[in-house]
């Protein structure tokens, strides 16, 4: 017993500060948040504890999911995530594919494609608000003006001011910012493929397409999965961009994270907590199987 304690004791002691912090700030708060989401804590008096909050079970969730307003936010989140994922994966793969073989100037291309990643969404939001200005024709500035200058007038549009598809305009800066990241992931994937594998395939007379289809793509699929998970998870960061491009008050571009901020600002803690829990469930559905899978693969 004492021997066992001596073996397990020190490592656990060393992990203790982090475990306690993560235990409280992640798991403890998730539980607390869920508890709040089950109450009628909708007013400032309740939020500050001057008036008691009563448990109403899942009423907040039911009301939220039934409201057209919140459905619009969820729909926006789906649209944004799909466009953002597709955009970054396509651009990231294309760039990695072009830069995969050693060539002159590859360092410059790589560095430039990746640099937006170092900038905050708030800072890039300042520029993109200017670029995505919805004024057209005489009054146009930003991208609409650029379209006129290169003779693509037809491409002018009102960007994030469109009620149904406005959110896609917000995905454009996000794609600009994170395609380089996906490129970096794919480049690492390409370079992890042994040369012998390609040589062997070529020896066997495989065409370029067959080489990709049967040799390179399967080797790259773990990288692609990682990229999908990371980028998909980052789509929740849309919050920063929306706050700096179109403001939280905008119906067109709101997503659940923005709703959560608005609820919190008006001291509607119960609804804010419910939105948070919904986001957590969405993320957990994707992440938990991924973590378990990764864990299992590592053991093998």
């Amino acid at each position, binding site marked *: 017993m004492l021997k066992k304690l001596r073996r*397990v004791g020190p*490592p656990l002691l*060393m*992990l203790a*500060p982090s*475990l306690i912090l*993560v235990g409280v*700030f992640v798991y403890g*708060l*998730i539980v607390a948040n869920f508890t*709040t989401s089950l109450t009628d804590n909708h007013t400032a008096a309740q939020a500050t504890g001057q008036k008691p909050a009563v448990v109403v079970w899942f009423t907040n969730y039911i009301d939220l999911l039934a409201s057209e307003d919140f459905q619009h936010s969820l729909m926006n989140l789906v649209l944004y995530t799909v466009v953002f994922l597709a955009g970054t994966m396509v651009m990231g793969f294309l*760039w990695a594919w072009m*830069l995969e*073989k*050693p060539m002159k100037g590859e360092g410059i*291309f790589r*560095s*430039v*494609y*990746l640099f937006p990643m170092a*900038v905050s969404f*708030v*800072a*890039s*939001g*300042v*520029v*993109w608000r*200017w670029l995505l200005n919805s004024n057209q024709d*005489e009054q*146009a500035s*930003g991208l609409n*003006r*650029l379209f006129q200058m290169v003779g693509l007038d037809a491409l002018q549009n009102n960007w994030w001011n469109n009620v149904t598809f406005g959110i896609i305009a917000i995905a454009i800066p996000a794609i600009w910012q994170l395609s*380089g*990241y996906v490129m*970096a*992931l794919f*480049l*690492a994937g390409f*370079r*992890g493929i042994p040369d012998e594998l390609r040589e062997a395939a070529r020896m066997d007379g495989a065409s370029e397409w067959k080489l990709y289809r049967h040799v390179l793509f399967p080797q790259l699929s773990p*990288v692609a999965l990682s990229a999908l998970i*990371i980028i998909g998870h980052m789509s929740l*960061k849309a919050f920063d961009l929306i706050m*700096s491009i179109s403001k939280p008050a905008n119906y067109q571009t709101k997503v*659940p*994270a923005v709703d*959560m*901020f608005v609820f*919190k600002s008006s001291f509607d803690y119960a609804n*804010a907590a419910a939105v*948070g*829990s919904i*986001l*957590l469930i969405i993320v957990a559905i994707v992440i938990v199987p*991924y*973590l*378990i899978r990764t864990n299992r693969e590592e*053991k093998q």
Partner: protein
Amino acid sequence: MTAAAEQLTAHRPAAVPPTLRTGRYSMARTLKYLALIFFLIVVLIPVYVLLVTSFKGTGDADPSRAWALPQLWTLENWQTAWTALSPSILRTIAVVVPSSIISAFLGSLNGFVLARWSFRGADIVFTVILFGMFIPYQAVMIPLTQLVLNLGLPSGVPTLILLHVVYGIPITTLIFRNYYTTVPHELIEAGRVDGAGMLRTYWSIVLPLSIPSFVVVLIWQFTSAWNDFLFAVFFSSSQNGPVTVALNNLANGALLQNYGVSMAGALFASLPTLIVYIILGKYFVGGLMSGSVKG
């Protein structure tokens, strides 16, 4: 993780047979360069806008001059933005420096224990910690505000340091753990045979080997804390908050129509992370790679 970074930066020798360097091949190469340059320009468009607009005076406000160079180059916007943002930049430094160092150190301890001083159930402990990296912070924000209030921490810098340390633990643990699994067992066993305890082994054998990982982790934490907006907007104001909050307020405030000032401000706010990226790009990429769990 580091292996991935090396693969990314290492140049493989060209394996193109000379017979392939014929007409069709160089045509394809020209097309490839054209495409690469096209994308280069597209990616740099916002940079052009940022720089040019930040030097424009009010005389250039007409939309027809939106993409033109300034008629009169002026530093006025830069001065206004600097006055508005410099206090918040100092506060950001006060948040980012201690929080990166503390969370890097905690991550290094955890990574070492989980990778090289393991015990039964260590994998489960690791997964439990790692999950913290993936949660949407919206799911803890409401009780977090109450917890911070109860702890009596002043809003602004002290609160943000705590939050960046705590929520940085999963990623720093991940990076160090992945790195330490590449440290040979023999090195640590040698220490054990010599009778060195866990702390002693960590301090005299593992820590000196960890410098590259520390650089990667510090850069990662520095960048993400510097660019953080979510925690900043919930736990500080433009009076006591970091530069992201101040910049957002500047861009929305009285100067709403004066894009020049907000553009100059955006540049100020981005310069530190951009400089780190330019100087220490290799390590920056290393941190990015570690974001993928398997590294």
